[in-house]
């Protein structure tokens, strides 16, 4: 139950008769009492005539998924099952980061009829956004007092990672296609397959002429090669405490998602199998055995619910996780942070176990503000800041050197640069036949 501004105004209007009629204190007090009693009586009458906010049936219609940054419409159907007209305000209580904006809707609902309340949701955060309750405030015919009830109407939408790095995808796919059918420029190795024979055109490497086929065809034939297909790519994201840190106002984990999505899209186009694991001390998310469009949709679905855990990642268990996915040779991409020698001391000892069998890339987000700070040396504070930034860069360089010494590759970049850099490294490895 509540009251409205109209009731407050009605009560305040009592000043007029009190001043006009109240010549003596006794008279004025009597007028005051009568006015307050009359206002209360009107309010109670109004309340008793208001429709019951409990006699409302609710149905939700929600899209199940939305990509972060996009908007969806949340539909709520209200049916008046009572016998009185409901003159009401409805509050659809979405969580704040669902981005519902003003979630109060004024509505008149005759008995037995149904109305639609639509809200534009623009979620501001990845993950599951929920709504549990709908609050209905039903006003009386005079609009003085109102009845209020909170009704259960659960609903949820899953907010997926934005995958803004997909803008890099077309150019990378183009470069990947260029690898097909190359002859001379490609470094042939274990990872390349014989593709086809075709007629020699000027410019082809004479070393790739297949003499036996030339003899059969009466024309000069060359062999062409294509990158090996059906390789395995295992993307393992560190969701431990270092992934919570924000670089350029984006958690490291989200950048890791962007990079792994771009890599997965690219590798899946190139015909490789991609497996995805998010791991700290246990598996937070896993996508295995999916291909094509299903792979990406399952990946974003899994990623949506993963949040950084404030615990140290158990790197000793990582080789076993990779072994559980594949026993064949694979490209293993570890997306973590290599900021400090101390924080990476658990990662370094397990790398040989992985590099013995697989090609390993360690990808890490670097902070562009650190690089910028090394050049700002105007005053005492800035010089010390530049020194600290140099020290941080040296730490990264030292850890990177240690990782390279273990036989793994290192890719670093700012949040905007890391996804394309990782994709480029993948293409380079594929071109080199090292998958």
């Amino acid at each position, binding site marked *: 139950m509540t009251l409205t501004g109209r009731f407050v105004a009605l009560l305040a209007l009592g*000043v007029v008769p009190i001043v006009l009629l109240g010549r003596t204190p006794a008279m004025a007090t009597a007028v005051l009492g009568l006015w307050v009693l009359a206002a209360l009586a009107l309010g109670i009458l109004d309340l008793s005539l208001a429709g019951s906010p409990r006699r409302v049936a609710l149905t939700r*219609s929600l899209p199940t*998924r939305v990509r972060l940054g996009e908007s969806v419409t949340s539909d709520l159907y209200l049916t008046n099952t009572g016998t009185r007209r409901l003159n009401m305000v409805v509050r659809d209580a979405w969580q*704040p980061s669902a981005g519902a904006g003003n979630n109060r809707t004024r509505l008149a609902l005759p008995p037995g009829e149904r109305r639609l309340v639509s809200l534009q949701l623009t979620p501001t955060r990845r993950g599951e956004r929920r709504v549990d309750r709908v609050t209905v405030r039903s006003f009386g015919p005079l609009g003085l007092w109102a009845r209020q009830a909170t009704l259960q109407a659960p609903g949820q939408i899953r907010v997926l990672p934005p995958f803004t790095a997909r803008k890099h995808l077309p150019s990378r796919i183009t470069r990947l296609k260029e690898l097909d059918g190359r002859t001379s420029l490609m470094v042939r190795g274990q990872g390349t397959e014989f593709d086809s024979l075709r007629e020699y055109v000027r410019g082809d490497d004479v070393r790739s002429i297949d003499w036996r086929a030339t003899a059969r065809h009466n024309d000069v034939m060359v062999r062409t090669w294509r990158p090996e297909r059906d390789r395995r790519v295992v993307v393992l994201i560190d969701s431990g405490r270092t992934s919570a840190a924000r670089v350029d106002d984006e958690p490291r984990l989200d950048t890791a998602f962007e990079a792994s999505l771009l890599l997965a899209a690219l590798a899946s186009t190139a015909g490789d199998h991609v497996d995805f694991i998010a791991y700290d001390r246990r598996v937070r998310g896993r996508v295995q055995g999916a291909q094509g469009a299903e792979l990406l949709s399952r990946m974003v679905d899994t990623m949506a619910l993963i949040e950084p855990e404030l615990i140290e990642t158990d790197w000793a268990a990582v080789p076993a996780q990779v072994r559980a996915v594949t026993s064949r040779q694979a490209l293993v991409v570890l997306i973590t942070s290599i900021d*400090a020698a101390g924080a990476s001391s658990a990662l370094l000892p397990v790398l040989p176990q992985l590099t013995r069998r697989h090609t390993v890339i360690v990808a890490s987000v670097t902070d562009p503000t650190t690089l910028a700070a090394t050049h700002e040396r105007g005053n005492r*504070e800035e010089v010390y800041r530049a*020194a600290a930034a140099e020290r941080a860069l040296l730490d990264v360089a030292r850890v990177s050197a240690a990782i390279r010494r273990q036989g793994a590759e290192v890719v670093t970049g700012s949040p905007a640069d890391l996804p394309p850099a990782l994709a480029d490294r993948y293409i380079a490895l594929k071109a080199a036949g090292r998958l």
Partner: protein
Amino acid sequence: MSLLKQAPSEPPAENAVATTPTLRAAGRRARFWLVAGAGALLVAVVSTVLAVGGADGEPLAADSATPVGARALVEVLRQQGVIVTAADSLDEARTLTSAAGDPTVFFFDPDGLLSADQLTAMARLAPRTIVASPDFLTLQTLAPAAGFGGVSQATASPARCTLPAAVKADTVSPGGPTLTIPAEADGLTGCFPSGDNAYALIQTAASDRTLTLLADGTLFNNERIIEAGNAALALNLLGAGDELIWYLPTIADVPGTGSPSLGELTPGWVTPTLVLLVLVTVAAAVWRGRRFGPLVAENLPVTVRASETMEGRARLYARSNARLRALDALRVGAVQRLAGQVGLSRLATLDEVIVLVASVTDRPSGEVRLVLVDAIPATDAELVALSDRILELERATARATTPLPPERMDS
């Protein structure tokens, strides 16, 4: 992204489950507190009512049942057919006495509110006036001959006078204050003596009116009226006429002075309007303060900036003036970049880098060595200057090693 939207099926007949408790359910849940609150209120009311019967109360008030009140006497007088009317002010007493046929006035003024003129006027209101516990001004005005005696030490107080009321009473409670009459005074009768011309009761009789002064007014209160002959004395003194005006002066008798007070100038509607404004404020508080359903909880992630370790280390350097350590970090970074610029590998020694940089930039190798290795800053200003020289060296090396654009090769 495909937005899956299911069309809602038939309108459901079932109401949504309400989480707000109904009025009845809320009452049932709060029953204990309601009962406890009502009980506390009851206890407070009962204890207040009982406390009224305590020692506090206006002395000799006609309607007071406390030990110091005089309700017992007034009730008995009324039963005897005397019309007892209480008066709060001299004007009221005057109105009452002028309306009555044969009035008696009982006057008791413990606070000394009346002035001499008012006392004289009061004494002229009725044929019989009884003054209880007269103070100095009352004695001066009404019976200048009489004076104050001490507190009586007598153990018994017989009448020993000819006043009918005193004779009928025979005795009153002994002790208490007394009044004195000088030996040569005329027209004054003293009763209940306690030696040295000290009396508990004095009567002065003029032609048409008698004035009786009772030294100790507490003889007539509820507590002591039943002692000795107090009741008989009181009933005979006060019940002489048909009507008794029980006049206890109040603040209304004090003549107002100067300009009218703020309260008198205030129009009658001001206080009710203020009350209304308070009510409006309360209503507005309910209107604005009523929450539109419960708050929605959401777990939000912590915000940790990745550069915090760098900033923290910078502040540590600055606070401890770790100039050499900071400079070392700058130099190591610079040497690595320089090695890359002049085409040396990461594993090149410091001396190789210095020699090559010096030759590329046309500087003496001693100067380069000073900047990159030897100089030790003594103050922060020197540190800033050295850091600038390192930057300058890096820039010069970059200029020297970057090939000029093709169109400017000839310059």
